[in-house]
């Protein structure tokens, strides 16, 4: 049973502390819901979890082995960020099959088609990416997590641009994945049913305002710089 955890994570972006002292733990079948206002660091945390962003302090562990500098980590996750990675000149199916094949699917085209069907958009399979509406693109992007297997899904505001029917579909897909032992971490401002998920409020890990001011003032006062 895999466990993915982070301890004492601190994230610094553009010389500004976004969150600090953050711990989390997701077990097989578990889910983590990232909440918090704009700019509290949900996207940053997901990028840290994916290994795209190096935490300034703290460590990530997969089954108690450090997952940073671990070449395998990328293969264990599916990351869906704000960008859709959809090529306008390739059809939806071609787009999806490519990622399925890189993700190690045995039959990329078949897996891709099945994923599109599961997301309720089999009819866009032959449509070039540039003709897709915002929501259709989003569904195509989400289909990527189904087209190749990976235990940990990292989803950044997956419900953006989805209509209600699609949100229900997504909830079903997430439940299924967890029932099969998968893990999920997702951020959202909207309502999404994720039964039994642990909630992580990013704003609780914001550096205190006092810290901020302290940093500023002593750096300035006697000329020690830069937070």
């Amino acid at each position, binding site marked *: 049973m895999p466990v993915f955890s982070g301890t004492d994570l601190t994230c610094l972006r553009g010389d500004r502390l976004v969150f600090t002292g953050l711990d989390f733990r997701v077990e097989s079948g578990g889910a983590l819901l990232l909440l918090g206002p704009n700019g509290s660091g949900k996207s940053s945390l997901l990028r840290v979890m994916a*290994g*795209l962003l*190096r935490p300034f302090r703290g460590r990530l562990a997969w089954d108690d082995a450090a997952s940073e500098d671990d070449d395998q980590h990328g*293969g264990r996750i599916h990351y869906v960020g704000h960008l859709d*990675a959809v*090529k306008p000149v*390739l059809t939806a199916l071609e787009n999806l099959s490519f990622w399925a094949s*890189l993700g190690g699917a045995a039959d990329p085209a078949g897996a891709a088609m099945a994923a599109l069907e599961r997301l309720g958009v089999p009819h866009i399979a032959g449509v070039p990416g540039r003709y897709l509406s915002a929501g259709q693109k989003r569904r195509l992007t989400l289909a990527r997590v189904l087209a190749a297997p990976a235990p940990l899904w990292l989803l950044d505001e997956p419900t953006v641009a989805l209509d209600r029917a699609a949100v229900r579909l997504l909830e079903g897909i997430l439940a299924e994945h967890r029932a099969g032992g998968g893990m999920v971490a997702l951020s959202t401002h909207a309502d999404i049913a994720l039964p039994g998920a642990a909630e992580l409020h990013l704003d609780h890990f914001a550096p205190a305002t006092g810290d901020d001011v302290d940093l500023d003032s002593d750096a300035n006062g006697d000329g020690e710089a830069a937070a």
Partner: protein
Amino acid sequence: MKGFLRLVARDLRLALRQGSDATIAVMFFVLCVVLFPFGVGPEANILARIAAGVIWVAALLASLLSLERLFLTDYEDGSLELLALSRIPMEAVVLAKTLAHWLVTGVPLIVAAPILALLLNMEAAGFGVLVLALAIGTPALSLIGSIGAALTLGARRGGVLLSLLILPLYIPVLIFGAGAIDAALNALSPRPHLLLLAGLLAAALPLAPLAGAAALRQALE
């Protein structure tokens, strides 16, 4: 290795699907050379004298222009992030994309070059060496250029900035490439020039993907 080939295949398909992209480099190459008779005047002997240099400079500029977008679309639409997370090492990603790019843009240059040499009244003695030198030199240009393309991701004014970074690094290729042809035209052996050119390519082949991958990783932070 399978991933590497899949990536090359995808990039080739994208380039061919987009049709014109593949022809742009060669179009620019041709136009750039064709401008010279208008700028310098139509005297045949002057044109013949500068033909090798002009063709090489045009090849440099064409390579630069088309390299600008090597990683750009993948960066902007998030594909590069996903590639970084995939099982393919970043160095292989750089190499695969550069290879696909060279197949699509570099090869047409090599084909078009003799025709342009004819236009500029170059002597026939130089044709073979011209093609050979371009065949060795353009992959080197693509490799060196890929470093610049990776470095300028996310920068403002990517295109012109790229030329500023990379043109100084291109100069050795230009010197030996044009030198080989001049040697042939002056009945000297082009061999040492070509060997040096090959040496540059051999050095760029491992180094460029390393530097390019380092630059890409930073771009994704």
